[in-house]
């Protein structure tokens, strides 16, 4: 295949990626956009097998069929065998950590590619090539280890709260400085040992960088690391003389940066505060302060009676709904209330659950009509006229501490103002605080009733109690 044809196909794949991102930005075209992106990626991969790459990074020109073809195909097969079932079988609740993991392995792949390039960079390599290769090793490693930590946080293999260590800011700054210093050394010395030291330091930096981020901020960091990985792909494209990799990587880097900002805005957080807030906040631990204060807990019948005489009910879903897979049951309850003439809406916090839009996805699965899902800004003014707000497995997104307690991890995040409703019902598994790990004053409010238990079984009981009335 001629270079011109190869580059033209690469350009087509690049256009497919632009259309994919464009499509993914609108609900109607999102699915088609994703398919266009997959098509572009498949096309780009296929065409490599029919093109003998020219001499790159100090290597001689290759010929067709590709060297090591069997190994290459075998490795792709292994990737398919691992990746496809993981993506197919994952529960909706575990989707966020899977995305984090996929991002991490992408960063790892970019770092490995750069390490192989580096091993071959001869004396004729330009300074720019060396710098871009070293850049890819650093950022790829940071993205890899950082994503693994976010995965562990979301999977609850480790605490999801911010991890703060003594002199944390200085340790992180010192690690970053040594990464940059060793990076400079690697660029000038071209040695394998310095490169390994650099990779190890970069992995360490990735871990330290993500550890202080906690709670609902984790998805923002995943998005940021996603943008990082994009940039490594662009840098690899420069070294490997591939326009497609430059376009694709830069697109992801740029759109990922914007997306990170949009996500931070949706939570009312500054990006800087998200990343380093844990160190500057006057760390205050609410645990132990209010553990044994009285709460009002009720039965499913109490809840049903309250609902039966309500005129307007707002359902506030959270991660607990996803864990319990209760989306169908909650719809059943909503339908039952509507049939009794009660005005029902779902109040959707943009970051309820573990990812922005998590609740929309979950409720859409249960075919909840779109017009019943009301976004935060629209639903908040209506809580004053709401008789009952049912909070199902949500905590941080309704926690008034976000408004009243400066310095707490979620301070400044817009919340659903359920406290304005006449009655509040919390469906919770236990008194444990939410993902951000802060006590919720609302639980002790006299107009709050708690119904303990798994969201699905609690809802089922409420539905049958309400039917019996």
């Amino acid at each position, binding site marked *: 295949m001629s270079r011109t044809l190869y580059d033209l196909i690469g350009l087509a794949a690049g256009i497919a990626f632009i259309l994919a991102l464009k499509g993914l930005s609108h609900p109607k075209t999102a*699915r088609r956009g994703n398919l266009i992106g997959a098509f572009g990626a498949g096309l780009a991969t296929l065409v490599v097998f029919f093109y003998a790459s020219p001499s790159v990074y100090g290597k001689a020109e290759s010929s067709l069929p590709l060297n090591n073809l069997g190994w290459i195909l075998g490795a792709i097969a292994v990737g398919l065998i691992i990746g496809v079932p993981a993506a197919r079988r994952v529960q909706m609740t575990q989707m966020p950590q899977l995305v984090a993991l996929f991002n991490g392995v992408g960063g790892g792949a970019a770092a490995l590619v750069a390490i192989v390039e580096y091993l071959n960079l001869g004396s004729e390599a330009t300074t720019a090539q060396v710098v871009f290769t070293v850049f890819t090793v650093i950022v790829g490693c940071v993205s890899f280890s950082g994503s693994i930590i976010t995965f562990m946080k979301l999977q609850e293999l480790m605490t999801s709260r911010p991890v703060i260590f003594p002199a944390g800011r200085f340790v992180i700054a010192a690690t970053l400085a040594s990464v940059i210093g060793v990076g400079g050394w690697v660029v000038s010395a071209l040695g394998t040992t310095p490169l390994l030291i650099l990779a190890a330091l970069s992995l360490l930096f990735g871990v330290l960088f993500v550890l202080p981020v906690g709670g609902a901020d984790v998805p923002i960091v995943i998005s940021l690391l996603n943008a990082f990985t994009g940039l490594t792909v662009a840098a690899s494209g420069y070294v490997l003389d591939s326009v497609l990799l430059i376009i694709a990587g830069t697109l992801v880097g740029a759109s990922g940066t914007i997306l990170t900002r949009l996500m931070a805005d949706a939570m009312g957080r500054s990006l800087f505060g998200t990343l380093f807030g844990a160190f500057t906040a006057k760390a205050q631990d609410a645990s132990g302060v209010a553990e044994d204060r009285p709460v009002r807990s009720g039965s499913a019948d109490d809840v049903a009676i309250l609902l039966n005489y309500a005129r307007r009910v707002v359902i506030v879903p959270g991660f607990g709904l996803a864990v319990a897979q209760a989306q169908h049951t909650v719809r059943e309850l909503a339908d039952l209330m509507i049939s009794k003439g009660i005005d029902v809406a779902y109040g959707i916090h943009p970051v309820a659950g573990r990812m922005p839009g998590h609740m929309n996805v979950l409720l859409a699965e249960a075919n909840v009509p779109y017009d019943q899902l009301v976004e935060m800004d629209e639903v908040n003014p209506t809580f004053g006229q709401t008789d009952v707000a049912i909070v199902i497995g949500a905590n941080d997104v309704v926690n008034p501490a976000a408004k009243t307690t400066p310095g707490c991890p979620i301070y400044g995040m817009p919340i659903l103002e359920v406290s304005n409703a006449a009655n509040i019902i919390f469906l919770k598994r236990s008194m444990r605080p939410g993902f951000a790990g802060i006590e919720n004053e609302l639980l002790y409010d006299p107009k709050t009733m708690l119904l303990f238990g798994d969201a699905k079984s609690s809802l089922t009981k409420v539905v049958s109690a309400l039917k019996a009335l």
Partner: protein
Amino acid sequence: MDAMAILSIFVLSVFVGFEVVSKVSSTLHTPLMSGANAIHGVILVGAIIVADHSETNLELGLSLAAIVLATINMVGGFVVTDRMLEMFKGQKK
């Protein structure tokens, strides 16, 4: 390739990347992140190129590991994004 051409491609791609996602409802943040994540799986192309050029076992081993990881990233990413978006199809109004 000529450095100026590459710089132009890079800068224009940055602008396109900024423009295409400037207004996205929060509902679509997660699928968009996941889709963009799948797109950078195209590093698979780079991994195949370095595997093709590998001469030592070390190089080949590292390249093949990169291919496995990149394939997981790319294919897994598109599949998982499609699964998320499938959930929206009942909402057409």
